[in-house]
């Protein structure tokens, strides 16, 4: 600016200006009092956010709990008190009992205790309708190959080789810990031209750890040793002279 001199004059005049000359009424002492009050005021610390901390802790706890629940490996804690009851939906089959025979048990090593206890329980449960025709047999060694574990025929037992989809039976109660009951049994064949009925039983809960099994995966379950088979028998009173009293009762054990 050519008018440097002018700007210098502006600067000089402005810098030399006092409030009095500018006609500014300034409450000097009042302003000092305000400033003093601000200087005296201790810096206020914000209160410790207890509520926020509590909420955060609760959330963290909830998340950890959920994570533990979902990340824990599932265990088969089935108690030995495994009881299978048959439905009374179909009169022809509601009276079928579970045989203590272990011919048809095709399970892995983990399921032995279950089936053993099952046998002992079923013996008690079937007391009113004792299958006197059942011949007890010594326990067969469990084959490591699940495909080979199809029950061997005996004089009084003819297993059905494979189940086919059929009508639905009602409830399986497996030990007292199972809160829900499996909604269905399945008969292999509704009309049953032969006395050997394959029951396929869905197990919903075994100690709350079992999930419903897909029946279509039957063979795969067999291969994976996730199925337990029990021979079933009709009541002696309902038996026909030529009726084969046994049938195969299967509990699917899924992981």
């Amino acid at each position: 600016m050519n008018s440097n001199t002018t700007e210098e004059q502006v600067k000089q005049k402005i810098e030399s200006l006092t409030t009095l000359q500018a006609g500014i009424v300034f409450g000097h002492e009042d302003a000092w009092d305000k400033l003093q009050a601000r200087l005296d005021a201790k810096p206020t610390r914000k209160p410790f956010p207890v509520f926020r901390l509590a909420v955060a802790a609760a959330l963290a706890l909830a998340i950890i709990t959920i994570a533990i629940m979902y990340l824990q490996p599932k265990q088969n804690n089935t108690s030995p008190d495994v009881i299978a009851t048959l439905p009374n939906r179909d009169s022809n089959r509601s009276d079928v009992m579970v045989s203590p025979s272990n011919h048809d048990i095709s399970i892995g090593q983990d399921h032995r205790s279950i089936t053993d206890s099952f046998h002992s329980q079923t013996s008690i449960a079937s007391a009113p309708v004792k299958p006197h025709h059942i011949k007890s047999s010594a326990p067969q060694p469990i084959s490591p190959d699940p495909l080979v574990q199809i029950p061997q025929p005996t004089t009084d037992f003819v297993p059905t080789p494979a189940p086919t989809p059929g009508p639905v039976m009602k409830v399986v109660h497996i030990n007292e810990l199972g809160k829900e009951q499996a909604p269905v049994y399945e008969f292999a064949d509704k009309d049953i031209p032969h006395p050997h009925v394959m029951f396929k039983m869905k197990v919903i809960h075994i100690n709350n750890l079992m999930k419903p099994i897909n029946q279509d995966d039957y063979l795969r379950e067999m291969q994976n040793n996730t199925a337990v088979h029990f021979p079933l028998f009709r009541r002696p009173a309902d038996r026909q002279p030529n009726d084969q009293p046994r049938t195969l009762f299967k509990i699917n054990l899924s992981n």
Partner: protein
Amino acid sequence: MTEEKAIQGCKKQDRISQKFLYDAYSDGMLMVCVRYVKNLPDAEELMLNGFFSFFRSIDRFVYSGKGSLVAWLKKIMVNECLMFLRKKGALRLVEEEYAGEIPVDGGSLNNINAGEILKMVTALPDGYRTVFNLFAIEGYGHKEIATMLGITEGTSKSQLNKGRAILQQLIKQNGCYYEQ
């Protein structure tokens, strides 16, 4: 009490020393704030904010002779004013290209008193006034002004030129003439 002793007292939070410095410089600092902010209550508040910041941060101040305290205080006040204007949105300046210096007739301000000049400066729009104050009164360069206001150097120069032109008009209206 000397200035230096007062500063030492302020570092110990001595209220008498603080009052001494306040009494000595509050008027001048209020005038600094008035140049940037038209409204007197706002200027007074900014001046108090400036003194508060000064007393709080006085440990960082190193006294290096007469004038150093005023310069330090002025810097604080200018910063307070710029923050205020920025919050108010008065410093949202449109980017402009510098179109060269506007020729200004020289003139004499002998016939105008300081109060009149202050009124003319404060009559300028916010952007022009701020740049004019920073450049012509505080002595900052365009680069510094651009950094302080977040604008380009060209915008700073352009704002200054336009401010000068308006100021020239106002001075002329008061019957004064620029001298070569």
